[in-house]
């Protein structure tokens, strides 16, 4: 039970990463901050282009499809759809590079 040769998951199978099931409150706060930072970039770019009278397809699509941080539900901010997960949701921190990619919308109904 104790000692150097005890059988644990790590010793038995080698690599074991423990990713917490949910985000901590500080992780959630930083996630909101990142979402707002992206909203800010979108706003600056769209204002600047509007002043020049130019349009941009990717910008228009983003504004039509993506909710802002304030409009998003907490569910979508901190979790995402996963067809294999119980109740079809997993923490957004399971997404690779989750702090540097946008993951805002999920399938309707889930």
């Amino acid at each position, binding site marked *: 039970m104790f000692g150097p040769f005890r059988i644990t998951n790590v010793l038995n199978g080698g690599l074991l990463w423990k990713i917490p099931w949910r985000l901590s409150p500080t992780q959630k706060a930083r996630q909101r901050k990142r979402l707002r930072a992206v909203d800010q*970039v979108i706003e600056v*770019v769209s*204002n600047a282009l509007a*002043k020049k009278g130019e349009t941009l397809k990717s910008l228009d699509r983003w504004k039509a499809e993506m909710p802002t941080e304030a409009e998003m539900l907490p569910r979508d901010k901190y979790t995402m759809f996963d067809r294999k997960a119980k109740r079809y949701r997993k923490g957004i921190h399971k997404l690779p590079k989750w702090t540097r990619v*946008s993951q805002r919308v999920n399938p309707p109904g889930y």
Partner: protein
Amino acid sequence: MSYFRITLHRSAIGLPKRTRGVLAALGLHRRGQLVFKPVSAQFAGMIMKVKELVRVEEVDRPMTKWEVYESRKPPAGFVVEGVAARREPLGSKVLAKLEEEKAAAAAEEVRL
């Protein structure tokens, strides 16, 4: 003419080649680097590709290299309120005294 002031805030390590390519095309090679690009749909599209990595502002004119350098300097820690009077050149008092003596001597000559 206005410009986008683009700062690379997050590194692109481990992100797709396309994303890193966009950053290279913007001239952003290291975190914290600052570039200025004219406001146009072309550059706006590039910013859209890397919107999670950069911070963007709209400015009237690009900063020069020197201005960027100056803006990055930490505060000196002191303020110069005024410049003290310069010291007189070495030996000026002696020379002034000699001049005075000469003038006095000349005056004596005239009196005699």
